[in-house]
């Protein structure tokens, strides 16, 4: 059976990890924001900003890691904007997030057209090359999948550990979780809820920016309009799937990557019988199904989307 054979090709598993990488960054970023009680619907635009800022830095002569740093910075700046509007001002997190997405996306497109008024084919850069880990990359099937990837992919996996450690093993992580669960109690402990929430949103948004830069600095080598293609929204679904735990976020991103990589290959196999659009729809439909399945058992941060004002209940 050809459809099953696909599962035993190294290229499939390499693609799984590749597709999952930006989603890992984005999901971890959104997870940090939501753990602090802030829904960040700016994610789609913030990932676009990271993709554009990172790529432009490299195009203008910066190094690849410099591009990643600039992407993180761009993400953090839009995070600061979102955080300022929804935390001290207490604006609707839904509307503001959509506004941040519209703003950062349109700013990127405007800037792109300013820098390249009349290009017909998108300018290219030299992207990250896969980094082979000696010995380990020779393991059949898993070697090429896990140990011949872009350095950014290794960073994504490292971030899962780092974010887990941060949230559960550091005082700062405890502070983030507390302001997301019970801001009044955090205040009583002498924490500054506003500052902690804004910083958490900035940190999370920086991760989203890095996730966006994976698309232009590793997966592709140029910047296109509409290139995020809903990845940000999928990350939001993955956060619910993960029940707000970094480890499960990794699992969710990998499952999603497996599904997406598999449908791409199945599509080539079955293109005659089934319209290709059906396969392309699957990732979005799958995200919705995941939300339904998980909805029963999730314990979401209790202060999520609840603005906090001193003295108000």
């Amino acid at each position, binding site marked *: 059976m050809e459809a099953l054979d696909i599962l035993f090709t190294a290229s499939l598993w390499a693609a799984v990890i590749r597709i999952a990488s930006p989603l890992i960054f984005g999901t971890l970023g959104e997870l940090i924001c939501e753990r602090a009680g802030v829904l960040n619907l700016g994610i789609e635009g913030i990932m676009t900003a990271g993709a554009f800022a990172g790529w432009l830095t490299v195009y203008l002569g910066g190094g690849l890691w410099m591009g990643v740093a600039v992407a993180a910075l761009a993400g953090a700046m839009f995070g600061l904007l979102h955080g300022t*509007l929804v935390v001290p001002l207490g604006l609707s997190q839904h*509307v503001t997030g959509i506004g941040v997405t519209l703003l950062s996306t349109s700013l990127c*497109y*405007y800037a792109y057209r*300013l820098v390249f008024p009349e290009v017909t084919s998108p300018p290219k850069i030299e992207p990250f090359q896969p980094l082979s880990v000696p010995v380990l990359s020779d393991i059949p099937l898993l070697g090429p999948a896990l140990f011949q990837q872009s350095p950014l992919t290794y960073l994504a996996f490292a971030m899962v550990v780092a974010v887990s450690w941060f949230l559960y093993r550091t005082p700062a992580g405890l502070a983030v979780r507390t302001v997301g669960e019970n801001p009044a109690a955090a205040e009583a402990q002498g924490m500054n809820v506003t500052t902690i929430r804004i910083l958490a949103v900035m940190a999370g948004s920086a991760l989203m920016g890095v996730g966006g830069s994976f698309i232009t600095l590793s997966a592709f080598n140029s910047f296109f309009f509409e290139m995020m293609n*809903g990845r940000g929204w999928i990350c939001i679904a993955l956060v619910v799937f993960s029940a707000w735990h970094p480890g499960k976020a990794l699992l969710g991103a990998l499952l999603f990557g497996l599904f997406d990589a598999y449908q791409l290959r199945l599509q080539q196999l079955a293109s005659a019988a089934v319209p290709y659009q059906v396969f392309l729809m699957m990732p979005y439909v799958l995200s919705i199904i995941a939300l*339904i399945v998980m909805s029963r058992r999730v314990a979401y941060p209790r202060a999520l989307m609840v603005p906090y004002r001193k003295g108000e209940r």
Partner: protein
Amino acid sequence: MRLEPLEKRSTFRMIALPVLALIFAMAICAVLVMLSGASPFQVFGLMVKGALGSRFAALETLTRATPLIFTGLAAAVAFRAKLWNIGAEAQLYIGAVMTVVMGTGLLPLPWPILWPVLMISAMLGGALVLSVPTFLKTRFGVDEVVTTLLLNFVALLFVSMLLEGVLKDPMGLGWPQSKKVLADAVLPRLVSGKRLHLGFVIAILAAVVVWIIDRRSALGYEMRAVGHNAKAAHFAGIPVNTVLAKTALLSGGLAGLAGWSEVTGLKGNLTLDLSPGFGYTGIVVAMLAMLHPLGVIASAIFVAAVFVGADAMSRTAGVPSYIAQVMVATSLLSMVSAIMLTRYRVRWR
């Protein structure tokens, strides 16, 4: 910094703050325009001229405002009840699909019957699309923001599949487009030789109807009560889930009408570029109107003017027309901030 609620909202604040917000948004865009080397005054002048400077330009602005009134109403109705419908784009496209399914020859009816049939079909299509996320919200507690957003992508792929499959026009030279709707389905032009069509009038009527529902009907009252505090509404005996379902039918139906009006009034058939994001822009339209149904008309015309003006300006001044999107997005963010500040006073300590 902290916010203190104001005892009562002063009229001065209610007017001054939104005006300041728009000036602030324009100032940001002026800086961006200067980055391109052009003079902001000249660019804004060209935009105003391009949007309102001639009879042709003004009619074009109203044409562009038509779908935005529908999608703006869709967002306003839903947001009033705190049903976060970010999926007007999908509902618009499915409304358009229903229009071409029913209107391209399946029902050879005279126009007085065909028009209402097509309108109802489009509304049902849009309403159905929003009913799914609303059901998932009320039944399983799944956040409708994410589901409506994801459905936008599903709907566009679905339309693409139909246009390359069952709905494909055999005479379309291989392009993914549907057949033209029947002549009886086409909405007449309001000014001969110009693109403005009857859909604009129907959009305004729709706004009036929504306003009457909002102010004069029990449903309007219930929708606002649910939006204000769903728990309190529940204790007051309002069936919250039923109200949300009705809100979804109304909101999705309005977005579906946007698709119907674009197909029968402007394009004649369905293509994949029917809507350049009218669904998303509708959210901005609704927020700028402070969710007031009649205000949606004015804010849709404003937003349409920005887009039409920027298109005309970029042809002559060479500043990228994406400045329109930036302007709309900054207006949205500064406006929602301003509205919040009409109710609170800022204390800087």
